[in-house]
């Protein structure tokens, strides 16, 4: 747990010393690998592990996107704050250390979960770009937000396909009518709307930035809200 506390501190102090964002990321990667080695499985079950993975993914994608920016301080600061918040939340939730049920021991589940959280992280990056665009009005921010959504949408689609294959093998159907699946459809339809809207000139700029921010709110509800508040196959 002390590694997590250090990574939380690193993300917070990255507001003053930016390289600490990368220190926070490295610490979380070490934590994820050590959890995996300890449990003998992918540590991506329950809110604790998934929040850490989401925070680390956001920091990693932010590092990659930052290369394309001249003025990256506001963007990286925003990501650092979000990563710190996720880490703090993860530290308040219990670890799930029990072995996986046999039905979860499959590559389809692992691909499904990893890709889902990577796509959530990219939707988060798009929201941050939307936020900094609304503040600074630099067109490059809006364009990068669109790219983040496009790649995130691709990973999200793959995640749904892997999830469908896994559900078919595990439960005989590729689609189950539960709130999680319905919210996943909402997310898919929402980002389909986002990508199509950007083909029209009117939407480029402020509307896309707002759509990117709202999209991440839906993403977070699909991830945490539905899993914590509603009964479904994905409940925590």
């Amino acid at each position, binding site marked *: 747990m002390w590694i997590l506390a250090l990574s939380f501190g690193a993300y917070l102090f990255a507001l003053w010393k930016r390289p600490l964002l990368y220190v926070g990321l490295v610490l979380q990667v070490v934590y994820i690998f050590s959890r995996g080695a300890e449990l003998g499985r992918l540590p991506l079950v329950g809110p604790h592990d998934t929040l850490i993975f989401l925070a680390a993914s956001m920091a990693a994608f932010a590092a990659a996107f930052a290369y394309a920016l001249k003025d990256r301080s506001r963007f990286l600061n925003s990501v650092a704050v979000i990563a710190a918040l996720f880490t703090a939340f993860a530290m308040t939730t219990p670890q799930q250390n*029990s*072995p996986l*049920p*046999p*039905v979860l*021991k*499959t590559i*389809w589940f692992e691909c499904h979960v990893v890709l889902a959280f990577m796509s959530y992280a990219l939707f988060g990056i798009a929201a941050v770009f939307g936020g900094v665009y609304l503040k600074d009005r630099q067109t490059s921010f809006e364009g990068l937000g669109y790219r983040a959504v*496009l*790649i995130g*949408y*691709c990973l999200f*689609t*793959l995640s*749904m*396909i892997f999830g*469908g*294959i*896994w559900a*078919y*093998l*595990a*439960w*005989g*159907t*590729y*689609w*189950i*009518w539960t*709130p999680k699946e*319905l*919210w996943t*459809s*909402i997310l898919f*339809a*929402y980002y*389909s*709307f986002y990508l*199509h*809207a950007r*083909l*029209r000139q009117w939407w480029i700029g402020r509307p896309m930035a707002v759509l990117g921010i709202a999209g991440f709110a839906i993403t977070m509800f699909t991830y945490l809200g539905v899993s914590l508040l*509603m*009964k479904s196959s994905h409940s925590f």
Partner: protein
Amino acid sequence: MYLLKNLLNIFFSLRTTLWLLGFSLVMLFAGAFIMPAHDEFQALHSSPLFEWIQNQPLKVTWWLWGLIGILSVLTVNTLLCSIESIINKRKVTQWLLLISPQIIHVGFLFILLAHLLSGLGSSQVMAAAGEGSEVKLSGGDTVLRVGDINMKYDSYGYLTDWDVSVEYLSDGNVLHRDIIRPNQPSTRMGFNINVRDLRPYPVEAVLLQINREPGALWALIGGILFTLGIVTLILLKIRMEK
């Protein structure tokens, strides 16, 4: 003629796509709040969607009817926009860039087709069975007999693995033998037979889940096409920027 032209223009429009996606979002949002609040949805898997929906009160299904209607119009809109795009841009040199969004659209339409087929013909039956029990499969005289049920536990008492042997019988003759394992269902005669739950005592027993999912293959084809299209599109965009 003027009316027909206007109607076609609406169907060919990207603006229509956005409205339809917006309306489908409204329906899905409504469903996301209606579904958890009504017990009627618990029985949704036991019969095909289109059969189930006709026997339910409109106050809980109106959003599904709305969604079906919107997706039907969106199907026409997707087809027409794709055809128009190919015709208008057929002379461009970057034909992969032209075709990849259309592959995504075809993938989407296959996924809709999968849901349509499943909505018309899917079924799900649960059956509790012990070793030696027989379960009749619907639509024929074939019987499924459950053989050995094996469960493995670790030192803490967690179930780590299991397998269940089954036999398909007709008139007492064994047609086929199979073993069901986690994520390895027994698939035969259009059925997908899984073990939903296991009970170690007082006697070893399983809860069998017998599914028929006619849209599964189409959903897989659609998913692969969708992925191929979007990955190609992203790679081309990256290459163009370089």
